[in-house]
């Protein structure tokens, strides 16, 4: 009896193993197809549709778009051919020029695209700091107008209360 059960179990395990052998390639293929599509999408998001719509290549949804359909097909071929994302992007650049990149490459003159806004902001910050410093110094040197402001806490509290009363809240 026991031997019969073991025989059945062995047969089942054998069948399962056989099944797994048959299904596994399909599963692997499905998974790799999914991974392939994800990779196409990931790289495609770094590229731009050049039909004039200014949309990301894989997001262009214009029907019969003269650019995005063929370009996505070219991208698929590049992704199949190259394991590296960078190489696939290079293949796209060779085909369509640097304009196909959704953002300028951070090299050569195009580096200016990335640096200039932050350089300008930093310059503005320095300028403001200088202006603040200059103004603060002038104010420190300027004669005091009107009555001096007291450091008396009770008086300060009274003025605060009056201002709050005037403004309907702390100023």
């Amino acid at each position: 009896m026991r031997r019969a059960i073991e025989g059945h179990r062995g047969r089942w395990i054998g069948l399962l193993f056989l099944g797994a052998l048959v299904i596994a390639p399909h599963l692997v293929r499905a998974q790799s197809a999914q991974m392939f599509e994800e990779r196409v999408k990931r790289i495609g998001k770094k590229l731009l549709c050049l039909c004039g719509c200014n949309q990301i290549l894989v997001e262009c949804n214009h029907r019969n778009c003269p650019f995005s359909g063929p370009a996505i097909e070219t991208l698929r071929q590049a992704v199949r051919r190259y394991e590296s994302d960078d190489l696939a992007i290079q293949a796209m650049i060779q085909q369509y020029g640097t304009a196909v990149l959704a953002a300028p490459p951070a090299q050569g003159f195009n580096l200016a695209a990335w640096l200039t806004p932050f350089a300008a902001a930093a310059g503005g910050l320095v300028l403001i700091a200088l202006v603040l410093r200059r103004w603060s110094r002038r104010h420190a040197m300027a004669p005091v107008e009107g009555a001096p402001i007291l450091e008396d806490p009770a008086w300060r509290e009274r003025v605060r209360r009056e201002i709050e009363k005037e403004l309907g809240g702390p100023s």
Partner: protein
Amino acid sequence: MMDSLGSFAVLLALTTCAYAFLAGIVAHLKKHPVLRATARRAGVVIFPTLSVAMACLWGLFLTDEFSIAYVANHSNRDLPFLYKFAALWSGQEGSLLFWSWILSGYIFFVLLKHREEGELRPLAGVILAGIQLFFLILNAFVVSPFRVLAEIASDGTTRPFVPADGRGLNPLLQYPEMVLHPPTLYLGYVGFSVPFAFALAALITRSPGERWIHVTRRWTMIAWGFLTLGILMGAHWAYAVLGWGGYWGWDPVENASFMPWLTGTAFLHSVMMQERRGMLKVWNVWLVFITFLLCVFGTFLTRSGVVSSVHAFAQSPIGHWFSGFLLLVFAVCLFFFSRRRDYLRSEHRLEAVLSRESSFLFNNLVLLAACFAVLWGTLFPVISEAVTGSKVSVGPPFFNRVNIPIFLLLLLLTGVGPLLAWRRTSWESLKRNFTYPTLIGAATGALLFVFGVRDPYALLAFGLSAFVTVTIVSEFYRGARVIRSQTGRTWAHALLELVLRNTRRYGGYVVHFGIVVMAIGIAGSAFEKEREMEMTVGSTMELGRYAVTLKDRARGETPNYIYERLTLEVRRGDERLTTLEPERRLYTASEQPLTKVTIHSGWREDLYIYFAGVNSETGMPIIHAYVNPLVRWLWIGGGIVLLGTLVALYPGRRPMKVAVSERARAREREVAYAKGD
């Protein structure tokens, strides 16, 4: 008949405007009051005259007068009434006439509202007439919407031609929001002409005090409010119509509307420094100039073909007109600035770095940095091509990477600024005001991190949103508490009283809160999910919490278009949520396709479904679905911003804050003298 009347009305408006402009200049130079009065009256007349031209063009659209080229190119017989009405501004010629009409409306109300004599208002009227003159020249001679269609006969002569039907309106524009989006945007763009005119007039006439600021504050807020509404409507239209799942693509034309919004926002903040402290006069004048120039620049971008965009009108010679006008305006501004610099000297200096004044300076810096980044990104393809000879693209990845840090900093300043006192802020006050908001902001970020949010920008955005919300709530709470203690009223009454006492200040806080809510909505885009699938009837697509089943596929037609419609059942777990029906349409008159997006909107997320196409081999429909978190918050935030703008525009019960502040300061001195100091 109507086209002749329309053309005549445009020419009459042009003549009247030319008189208003030239007579106004002569009256200003010769100090001639009668001439000045006639110039004013001529300025007032432009609006009713152009209204006749507008009525004629609308009449031509509504009566299907296809002998007129503009009508034939932008309408057709079966176009619904509402879209025939909106078709007027769907093309170059009509939109420019519409622009002129809105400008004449602003001039009309400015001249009627500000009747007082003196030099400021009349000269502002002359400057506005000068701007109007430019647009009317375009309307009359360069891009007239009243041109009659003609064909060349076999003998070489031309004769009128009337097509059986028009070419129809662009399907993308056949959407209810498109009826309102261009008018609101134009009201915003054109509205900035008013503060520009007053600023330039004040500079030319060396108008004493801050008169121009007081006059134009409301006009600036109205223009800013319309521009905000226009941008929001445009974003919503892009979301609901274009079908790529987003609402902002950093398209050059979107950028063109965003840039004056940023500088206009900077002006609305920095103007307070001039009102209260007599500071930043040069800065404010240039902010107004730049805002106006950016509005013209946006129009130039849209119409010149310098940059490619889906929104742009076809490349046309009109771009040269705008670049010329832009240069002329800039030269005039620069000339008068160089001649009148002494007029713009600040009355006060900064007393402490830790003050409301310096927070405004930083706020302005950040807003202008954002504006520059957008301008730079928009123009970089042109600059790069000119320098290197090769073309590059600057798309959403660039703008997002550069602008997100800037906007997060701006969000931080939204919370920090209002808590700093004018002139000087003590460390104690800083501690008192910032402890709870900072703790709550940090706790929010930490909590979200614990719950699995890992995107650093999203964490910062949510944390800062919490921080700013607490600062705003505490401002309302403290103000209402004071009123409650004074009057014994309920919290609701006290809050209402507080807002009515200083609508500008508390309206501003409401606007800030709206920005916070919008920031939450925008931060949600970090968690977007999407999936595309070819479906058969009965098959189901799983995405996030949703299961979308294709139930039916049908074809049909309306007088305006033929369509293919999918019926999709949306379920969440066991619950049946809704039925969505995305469509693919082909508009018969224009033979242009359009895909109608369907959205199931919720507080947590939107399920956005787009009928992407049909597999040419299998004939099966392809569905592209997105789960877009928190998008509804963006629209609600926009509504709150507009509500806050309305509150700020409402006249407060109290006198101007500057007067109150002066009184308070005078009392400070009295108290000090009474104590013998």
